[in-house]
C-alpha cells in the first residue's frame, strides 16, 4: 500500500463548507466514516510495517482488533449509506483472492461494503473533494484492493529459492507451474514467430478465422464431439472471465440470475457482478453423505429444482445454470448421466447452461474418463448450451489471456463477438495459440503425458502429507487442487475462525484460499493448489504443518482457559 506524499489539490475557491453544503448529512457522515475506516486501516498497516509482524501474539491481537473495528465501521457505513442512497444492503467484507487472478466473495456480500478506496489521504479536507470515481468505480476499486491485498503482497514478496527464502508461497492461485519448462521450449520454436500484415491489423472481432478453425478442430478432437464442430460457433476472447462476462451480458438483464452449485469458482461471481450485474444464486451442496447423496457435495436435480423454486418465489428471474466440469474446487467430474440430468432440468425450465470445461485436459487420474458436454450425441437444448474453454489451466499459460466460447447458437456467438472490441487478443498471440493447438502430436505424446504424470506426483505428495496429518480432503483426480477440511482446527467452527486461520497461513507466508470464497456453506474448507514444483511444494507443506501445529496449540490453550473459567 503506497502513501501519497501530500494532500490532493483542492479546486480553487472550493472551501470545505461549500462542499458540505452540496451534500446531504448522510453523505457527509458517510464520508467521515469512510475516512475513519481508511485511517484505521492505514494505522494497522503502519503497525505492521514497524516490525510488529515478528511478534506473533501481538499481531494476532491487532488483527482481532482490526477485524472488529472494520466490522463496526462497515456496519456504520452500511447504515449511513442506506440513509444516503436508500436500500443498499451491505455486509462485512470478505477479502480473499484466487485463481485466474479473480476475486471471490461470499454469497450476498455486496461490493459497496468493501474497504473504501479513498486511500492515502493525509488530510481530512481532501477526503471531501477527491471523490473522482463513480460509485461503481469505487466499488470495483474497493473490491480489487481488498481482495488483491494478499495477492499483491505475494507478488511483491515472492519466494525465491536463493534470493528470497522467506517470501510468500502461493498455493491459493490456481496455476499449473509444473510444465512451464515444456511450454517455454515449445513457445520458442520457430513456428511460433510469425509477423504477417493481417496479424497487425484489425481482426475479425470473433477471433482470427485461422484460430477459430483450429479451436473447432481441437475441441472436436479432445472433447470427442460426435460431429465436427463449426468454426462459426467459436468466439475467442482474452480469457474465460471475459467470455463469461460477455455471456452474462447477452443472456441476462441486470438483476437477473444464474444458478450455481456451490462450492463454486468465485471468479465468475466477480465477473458477473462487476460488469454484467448478474446475480449468482447458490445451490448449496453438503459434504455429508446420505442415502440420496452417495458422495460428498453431490449435485442432484432435486437440489436444482429446490433452488430454482426458491429463487423464483423470491421474485428472481433465473436465466441459466453454470456448471464447472471438472469441478473447481472439488476436483470432481460429472458423469455423463448426471450431466444429462442437469441439462434436462435446464431444458425443462428454459434455462441456459454455461459449462466451463477449463480443466478438461487436467484429469490426471487415468482411471477417470472425462466426458465433455460437447461429446454428447444429443444435447437436450443445443441452442441454450454454451461451453467455455481456455488454455490457462490445461496448458499452464494463464498469462496468455485466451478463452473460447463454443455455442451452437449462432445468434449468441454473433452478439458475444460484439464484445470482441473490448476483449480482443493480439494477432501475434492468436498465431501462437493456433500453432500450439495445431500440434496434436506434441500435445498427445509430449505435453499431456508429462503434465499428467507431474500432476499425479505432486498430488500424491500433498495427499500423503494430508493423510499423515489426518486431514480429510476431497479429490477425485482432476484439477490442480485438493479441497481440504480443516474444521477440526476451528473452535467454534465459524467463518470468522476460518478467516483467522487463513490469516495465520498468511502470517506464515503461505497463501491458500478459504471456503467462504467459494460460497461454501460449511466453514472450515480450504482449497490447496498442488501444481507447483516439488521443492517449493515441500516448503509450503512445511509451513502448512507449522500453522496447523500452532493453531492446535492455541486451541488447547483456549479449551483449557474455557475449562478453568467453568
Amino acid at each position, binding site marked *: 500500500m503506497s502513501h501519497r506524499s501530500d494532500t490532493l489539490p483542492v479546486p480553487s475557491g472550493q472551501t470545505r463548507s461549500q462542499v458540505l453544503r452540496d451534500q446531504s448529512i448522510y453523505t457527509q457522515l458517510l464520508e467521515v466514516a469512510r475516512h475513519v475506516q481508511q485511517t484505521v486501516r492505514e494505522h494497522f498497516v503502519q503497525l505492521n510495517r514497524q516490525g510488529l509482524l515478528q511478534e506473533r501474539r501481538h499481531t494476532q491481537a491487532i488483527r482481532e482488533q482490526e477485524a472488529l473495528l472494520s466490522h463496526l465501521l462497515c456496519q456504520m457505513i452500511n447504515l449511513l449509506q442506506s440513509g444516503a442512497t436508500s436500500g443498499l444492503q451491505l455486509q462485512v467484507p470478505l477479502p480473499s483472492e484466487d485463481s485466474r487472478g479473480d476475486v471471490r466473495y461470499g454469497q450476498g456480500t455486496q461490493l459497496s461494503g468493501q474497504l473504501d*478506496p479513498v486511500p492515502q489521504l493525509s488530510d481530512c479536507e481532501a477526503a471531501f473533494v477527491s471523490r*473522482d470515481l463513480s*460509485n461503481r468505480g469505487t466499488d470495483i476499486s474497493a473490491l480489487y484492493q481488498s481482495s488483491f491485498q494478499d495477492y499483491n503482497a505475494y507478488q511483491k514478496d515472492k519466494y525465491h529459492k536463493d534470493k528470497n527464502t522467506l517470501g510468500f508461497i502461493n498455493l491459493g492461485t490456481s496455476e499449473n507451474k509444473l510444465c512451464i519448462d515444456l511450454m517455454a521450449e515449445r513457445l520458442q520454436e520457430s513456428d511460433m514467430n510469425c509477423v504477417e500484415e493481417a496479424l497487425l491489423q484489425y481482426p475479425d472481432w470473433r477471433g482470427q478465422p485461422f484460430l477459430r478453425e483450429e479451436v473447432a478442430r481441437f475441441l472436436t478432437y479432445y472433447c470427442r464431439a460426435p460431429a465436427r464442430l463449426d468454426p462459426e460457433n467459436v468466439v475467442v476472447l482474452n480469457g474465460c472471465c471475459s467470455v463469461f462476462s460477455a455471456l452474462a451480458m447477452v443472456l441476462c438483464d441486470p438483476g437477473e440470475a444464474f444458478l450455481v452449485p456451490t462450492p463454486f469458482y468465485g471468479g465468475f461471481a466477480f465477473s458477473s457482478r462487476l460488469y454484467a450485474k448478474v446475480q449468482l444464486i447458490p445451490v448449496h451442496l453438503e459434504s455429508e453423505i446420505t442415502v440420496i447423496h452417495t458422495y460428498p457435495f453431490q449435485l442432484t436435480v432435486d437440489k436444482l429444482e429446490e433452488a430454482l423454486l426458491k429463487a423464483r418465489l423470491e421474485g428472481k428471474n433465473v436465466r441459466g445454470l453454470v456448471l464447472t466440469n471438472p469441478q473447481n474446487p472439488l476436483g470432481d467430474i460429472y458423469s455423463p448421466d448426471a450431466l444429462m440430468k442437469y441439462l434436462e432440468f435446464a431444458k425443462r425450465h428454459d434455462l441456459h447452461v454455461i459449462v466451463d470445461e477449463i480443466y478438461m485436459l487436467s484429469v490426471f487420474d487415468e482411471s477417470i474418463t472425462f466426458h465433455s458436454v460437447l461429446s454428447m450425441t444429443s444435447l437436450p437444448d443445443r441452442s441454450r448450451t454454451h461451453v467455455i474453454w481456455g488454455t490457462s489451466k490445461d496448458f499452464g499459460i494463464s498469462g496468455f489471456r485466451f478463452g473460447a466460447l463454443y455455442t451452437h447458437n449462432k445468434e449468441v456467438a454473433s452478439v458475444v463477438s*460484439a464484445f470482441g472490441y*473490448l476483449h480482443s487478443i493480439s494477432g501475434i498471440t492468436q498465431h501462437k495459440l493456433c500453432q500450439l493447438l495445431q500440434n496434436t502430436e506434441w500435445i498427445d505424446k509430449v505435453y499431456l503425458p508429462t503434465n499428467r504424470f507431474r500432476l499425479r506426483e505432486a498430488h500424491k505428495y500433498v495427499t500423503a502429507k494430508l493423510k499423515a496429518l489426518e486431514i480429510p480432503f476431497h479429490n477425485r483426480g482432476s484439477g490442480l487442487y485438493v479441497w481440504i477440511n480443516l474444521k477440526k482446527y476451528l473452535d467454534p467452527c465459524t467463518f470468522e475462525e476460518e478467516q483467522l486461520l487463513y490469516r495465520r497461513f498468511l502470517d506464515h507466508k503461505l497463501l491458500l484460499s478459504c471456503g467462504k470464497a467459494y460460497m461454501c456453506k460449511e466453514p472450515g474448507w480450504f482449497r490447496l493448489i498442488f501444481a507447483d514444483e516439488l521443492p517449493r511444494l515441500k516448503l509450503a507443506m512445511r509451513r502448512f504443518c507449522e500453522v496447523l501445529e500452532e493453531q492446535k496449540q492455541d486451541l488447547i490453550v483456549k479449551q483449557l482457559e474455557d475449562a478453568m473459567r467453568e
Partner: protein
Amino acid sequence: MFTLPQKNFRAPTTCLGPTCMQDMDSSHGDDLEGECSRKVDQKLPGVGDPAMLSSGTSYLSSRGRMIKWFWDLAEEGYRTYHMDEYDEDKNPSGIINFGTSENKLCFDLLSRRLSQSDMQWVEPSLLQYPDWRGHLFLREEIAKFLTFYCKSPVPLRPENVVVLNGGASLFSALATVLCEVGEAFLIPTPYYGAITQHVCLYGNVRLAYVYLDSEVTGLDTRPFQLTVEKLEMALREAYSEGVKVKGVILINPQNPLGDVYSPEELQEYLVFAKRHKLHVIVDEVYMLSVFEESVGYRSVLSLERLPDPQRTHVMWATSKDFGMSGLRFATLYTENQDVATAVASLCRYHGLSGLVQYQMAQLLRDRDWINQVYLPENHARLKAAHTYVSEELRALGIPFLSRGAGFFIWVDLRKYLPKGTFEEEMLLWRRFLDNKVLLSFGKAFECKEPGWFRFVFSDQAHRLRLGEQPTFPAQSSLQPSLWPLLFVPTHHAIGASRPLASPF
C-alpha cells in the same frame, strides 16, 4: 480504429447519444434491484422499432438484443467489406477500404523489427498471471517513452501507467469507473464515432455532443473550431436535459479532422473542465502520426502545469502510431491513483499476453530504431500519400480539411447532396460501397452537417491509385458530379456510371 457506419438512428437535433441498455435516470446504477425493476427498453431515444427489440429471439436478454441490434448496424459496412476484400491477386475487383483508420504504409519496417531475435523471449513469469496493471518492466518503458515523446517537463512515473488491450477497452473501463449509468462525457463532434459503443457497451455511459460548424464565424479562426463557449453551452444543455456530465473527451490530434489543438487552446479547455470539476480524457493515439512539422503538435503531458492533474487522463496506443491495430495494446497515464487502480481492477477483462507485453517493451525501448528508422520513414510515407490524395482532390475542386496529422482527410461532398440530408449522405455512402469503395460518412462521426466523409489515405500507393483511378482519360474535364466515380476501380465504373448520373 474502424469507424462505424451507423444508420441515422437518432434525430439530428438530439444532443445526446443513445443509452444502449438502460435508461439514463439511475443515479447509482450498481444497485441490482433498481436496475432489475426498471423496464430496459423504455425511454430509449429514437432507437429503431421497440417491437423488434422486445420480440423476436427468445435466447437473448433485452440488452443482448439491443447489443445485437447495434452491432449488426455498426458492422454492416465492415462485414460487406470482409466478404469481398480487395486483394491484388486473389480478388482484384474486391472492395477497397478507405474507411478503417489503419496505417498500412510501414508494415515492412514493423515486420522486420518484430521478427528480430530480441522479440522472441519466453520466460515463466510472462506465461503466468501478471500484475493486472501491466508488467512492471513494460510500465517502466511506457513511462520513459511518454516522457520523451510527449516532452514531459518531469519524468513520468510507472505507477501512473495502466496497460490494456486497446483503446476501446480503455474507454470502456474509464467510463465505468468515472461515471454512473446514464451519465455522460462531453465530446466535440465530428469525433471518432466508435467511442459511443465503447463507453456504452458495459458502462452505459452516453456522450453529450458539442456540435462544431464547418463555417468560420465570430471568434473562430478555422472550421470546426472548438471553443470554451461551445463547451459551456453544451454543458448547460446537457444539464437542462437532466443529464449529469462527468467529463470531456478530447482527441488530439483530432480524428477525423486531422487537426491538432494548440497548447493555448488545450489549456483553455482544461481550465474549463477544472471549473466544472470535469474529468478530461485526452486521447493522443495519433500523437506520433503528425507528419507536418509546422503543425506544432503538443501533448497534454508536455504542459508545464496541468490545471487539474487529478482529473486529467491521457490515452495512447500503438495501433495508429505504430500501425499495429491488431496488436491490441493501449495505455492510460493518470496521476490519479484512485482512477489508475480502478481501471486496473477491470484489467482482468482487458489484459494482454505477457509475451506481447515483453515485445512492446522491446519496441518502445528501441529509441534508435524509432527515431532514425521508423518515424522518419513513416512520416515521409504518410506525407507522400497525403500529398497524392490531396492533390487529386484539389484538381477536382473538392474541398477538404487536413492539416498534416493522422491518416485521414475530411472531405466535403456537400455539393453532391441536392437536399443536404443524412439520407442522401447514406445513399452516397452506399453508392461508394456498391462501387467497391468503403468510406466513412459524417453521420458516423456525429457531424452536424450532412455531406462530409472521412477518407483514409495511409494505404499502399497501388491501392490508393486503384481506388482513385480516373475513369475518363481527361481528368480535368470531369464534371464535379462525376467525382465519386473516381473512387471506383475501372471495370466497375462503366456499369456504375448510369445509375450515378440520375440523382445528381
